[in-house]
């Protein structure tokens, strides 16, 4: 019979609402794969309905206190708590001043209601290749801090998305914080996405972080979403930027190189051919925009 999960309500599960993080970690240790974590709720229910199954337990973070921070620690960087929402992200002055790609990814994501409910961490844990904040975080570089009964560990974002829908988080771990290293004064970043209409998931997104030194790019990180099973970096293309001034001919080279590093598919939102052609264009534009950001002489 129909395996269709109705949009009118939710499937059956047991809801767990821990009051403290240690309690949450205990529940994770106890139930592991039998448990889904619920924070904003904007992703989980549609995910569950799309796969037509739900875990027996759902762990709500709603009662946990002290996880909704976005703190800038001078000399260290940005710390984003597990419950910090995208709405908080885009209102945070430190984020818009120094982590432009992350600000932009939150700004263009969703709509005001979704931004109010969705968490930055949730975006990362969802492991969708079209996730916007994830794209910016991969470009900026960061660590995901995971807490279990045996302690905390940090996983580099480059090692966090293992394959489509699969992360490095173990079933008994609670993701508690995202740590982004403080950029240098000459670091520039930017994010751009393409959609069908404004209120949409991305059909393509790009984020870049450029370490500039007097007009020359010392190091680049370029993250692209929607062109592979996970958000990915195009490292060969990044290497072409190393030690170079950003010129039109370099940008054209980068666009060509990008095409060779990605493997997009046809899906609801776009085609492989389109993404193949346009990814390079968006990379060029995002790099140009990042490099042109005003600030101290680069």
């Amino acid at each position, binding site marked *: 019979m129909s395996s269709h999960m109705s*949009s009118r309500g939710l499937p059956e599960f047991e*809801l767990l609402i821990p009051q403290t993080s240690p309690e949450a970690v205990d529940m994770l240790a106890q139930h592991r794969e039998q448990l889904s974590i619920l924070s904003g*709720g904007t992703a989980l229910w*549609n995910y569950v309905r799309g796969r037509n199954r739900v875990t027996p337990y*759902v762990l709500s973070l709603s009662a946990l206190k002290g996880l909704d921070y976005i703190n800038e620690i001078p000399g260290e960087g940005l710390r984003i708590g597990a419950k910090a929402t995208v709405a908080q992200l885009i209102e945070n002055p430190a984020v818009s001043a120094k982590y432009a790609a992350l600000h932009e990814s939150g700004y263009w994501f969703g709509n*005001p209601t979704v931004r109010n409910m969705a968490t930055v961490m949730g975006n990362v844990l969802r492991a969708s290749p079209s996730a916007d904040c994830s794209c910016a975080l991969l470009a900026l570089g960061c660590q995901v801090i995971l807490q279990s009964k045996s302690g905390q560990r940090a996983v580099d974002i480059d090692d966090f998305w293992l394959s489509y829908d699969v992360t490095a988080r173990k079933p008994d771990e609670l993701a508690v914080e995202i740590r982004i290293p403080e950029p240098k004064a000459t670091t520039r970043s930017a994010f751009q996405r393409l959609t069908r209409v404004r209120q949409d998931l991305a059909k393509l997104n790009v984020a870049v972080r450029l370490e500039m030194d007097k007009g020359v790019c010392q190091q680049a990180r370029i993250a692209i979403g929607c062109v592979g099973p996970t958000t990915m970096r195009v490292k060969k293309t990044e290497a072409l930027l190393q030690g170079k001034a950003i010129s039109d001919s370099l940008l054209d080279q980068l666009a060509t190189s990008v095409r060779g590093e990605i493997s997009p598919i046809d899906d609801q939102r776009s085609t492989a051919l389109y993404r193949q052609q346009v990814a390079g264009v968006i990379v060029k534009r995002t790099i140009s925009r990042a490099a042109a950001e005003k600030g101290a002489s680069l």
Partner: protein
Amino acid sequence: MKTRLITLCVNGRDYKLEVPHNRTLLQALRDDLQLTDTKYGCGSGECGGCTVLINGKDNVNSCLSLAAEMEGKHITTVGGLTKNGELHPIQQAFVELGAIQCGFCTPGMVMKTASLLAHNPNPSEDDIRRGLEGNICRCTGYENIIRAVQKASQMINAGGARS
């Protein structure tokens, strides 16, 4: 399935409910409390017909929110804006500016407007368009709704505001 005893505060009134764990806030409002002013439009957080106001300032899609997680929060639905039959300035503006056609998106659209103006009392037209994203109207093309939000912000700033 297991149930929880919860207290929901809706439009200033406390309601005690026993809800299954998987009860959405939308189901609790419409089916358990018979407050049908908030609408089921898609059940997936895409149309905004279920938009309610939380703690006077922020919107959530009640179709994606668990009733059990809503304890301790002040929930306002469109019926809660009307006081003794008197329209809130946002409602008045919607009426005056022809922003209501079939009316099905209207409750959610009004609550979205309430959140927008709570955060940004003087929005530009672009702010308003961005601020209404996530609430679908298939009747008006959004034109008269945007005029109504502009009018509402003028009315509220001129002192017509009620908490």
